[in-house]
């Protein structure tokens, strides 16, 4: 089972169940991330997309199920093995998570300095190349506190791709970007996978951008995968849930609200108290 999946899929999630306290976040879901492709994960806010990335990175342990990365079952790895596996992946955090005690340049140089023995000269070339790719070469001397929200996320993106790892997990790479930098980032993610064969997982709500870069899309809602396929298949999906999500209607099959009793009932209860 492991070896057959290993060829085409870098990450294989099988029958994963995850709970936060009593609350079930994922109920027995399975999905696979093909090697060298851009896979998008979409879904309403709070559904557990960030959680899913953290599960793949081994920062959270599932209740049950397997998360295979290149054939290794992440939840069962020892601490040392997990750190070994993580050298092959990187993650763009939703909050950016830049190191506040270092300049932009040092932030991006940090993983390179830690994991390679390259000379400072070469490191500088790599860092400037990555900064150029996100359009912030001029910002190399700034401190993270001096960046705008969108700039900080682009620096974090440059840091995530600094080592060109096998697997890159992007949590909301487009959030807070203007249309121009959005276009740049879309092309950047696409080209990393086309030119270098890196595997990308993109979590995002931006339907048009995702449709334009993803090779394969999973839509997650209600603790499950409600639809998956290529952008074309998703667009033609007959499921009302999927259609509602990509059209962006508030009223429909997908609940927009965090689990709660009906609003009407709650109002009546308050009045009658």
């Amino acid at each position: 089972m492991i070896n057959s999946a290993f060829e085409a899929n870098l990450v294989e999630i099988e029958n994963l169940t995850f709970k936060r306290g009593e609350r079930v976040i994922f109920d027995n879901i399975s999905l696979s991330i093909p090697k060298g492709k851009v896979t998008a994960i979409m879904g309403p806010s709070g559904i557990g997309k960030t959680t899913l990335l953290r599960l793949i990175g081994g920062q959270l342990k599932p209740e049950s199920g397997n998360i295979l990365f290149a054939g290794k079952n992440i939840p069962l790895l020892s601490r040392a093995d997990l750190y070994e596996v993580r050298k092959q992946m990187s993650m763009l955090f939703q909050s950016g998570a830049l190191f506040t005690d270092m300049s932009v340049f040092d932030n991006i140089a940090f993983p390179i300095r830690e994991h390679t023995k390259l000379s400072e000269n070469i490191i500088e070339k790599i860092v400037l190349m990555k900064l150029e790719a996100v359009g912030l070469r001029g910002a190399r001397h700034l401190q993270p506190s001096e960046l705008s929200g969108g700039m900080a996320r682009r620096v974090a993106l440059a840091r995530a791709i600094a080592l060109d790892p096998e697997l890159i997990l992007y949590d909301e790479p487009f959030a807070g970007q203007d249309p121009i930098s959005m276009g740049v980032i879309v092309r950047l993610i696409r080209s990393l996978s086309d030119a270098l064969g890196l595997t990308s997982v993109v979590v995002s709500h931006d339907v048009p951008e995702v449709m334009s870069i993803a090779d394969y899309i999973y839509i997650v809602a209600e603790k499950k995968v409600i639809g998956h396929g290529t952008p074309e298949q998703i667009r033609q999906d007959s499921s009302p849930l999927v259609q509602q999500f990509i059209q962006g209607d508030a009223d429909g099959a997908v609940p927009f609200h965090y689990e709660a009793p009906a609003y009407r009932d709650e109002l009546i209860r308050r009045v009658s108290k």
Partner: protein
Amino acid sequence: MQQLHYLGKQTLSMISGLGRAVILLVSAIVHVPNVRKGTPLLIQQLYSVGVLSLLIIIVSGTFIGMVLALQGYTILVGYGAEASLGPMVALSLLRELGPVVAGLLFAGRAGSALTAEIGLMKATEQLSSLEMMAIDPLRRIIAPRFWAGFISLPLLTAIFSMVGILGAHVVGVNWLGVDSGTFWSVMQEQVDFEKDILNSVIKSIVFAFVVMWIAVYKGYDCEPTSEGISRATTSTVVQSSLLILCLDFILTALMFVK
């Protein structure tokens, strides 16, 4: 019944907290240090934990020495025993005040800062992002800070006692007119290396261990929100101060009571 339930819950969470603290300590400090990468990190922390605490230690040490000399002199002079001012000050500082006051100041100055720094790194996902970069935050962030504090406090305590004695000299000799030769020679005669100086060092090492352990644990284990960090910072100062005072009593009883 409800109280019982509450008590049980509190006890359980205390024990599990203690367990996490032990695990943190063990995994942060029990490993082969990487000299090439670790040394610059340690030096940087020695600066921010140790060197930056110097000022408060020197100023407080001086004042405490001066006050001791003033009080000591007014009492001793009544018995014509002002020649014992030197040893009185030196013994008070070495045996008790040096380790305890330096420890308390260190907890307030460096311990709280470390907790807040680590807590904020956690809240802004910097620790998670290190983990995802395959860099163990326990080694990269916690260990150098722990060791820096562990090395700094005994040195700061020694400095505290020294400037305290100098402060007492200024007040006792230069102001109140005790003979300088007597001040030093009687002190030399009365202070025992093993009993006083070594015990002072042992106390400061114990306090350093306690303060740093609490500080890094509270930061690493805090709830990653602003209230969580402020609570953790407060409890670092409160718990390490109380523990220093308790342990001081126990250590004194073990060291000085025959």
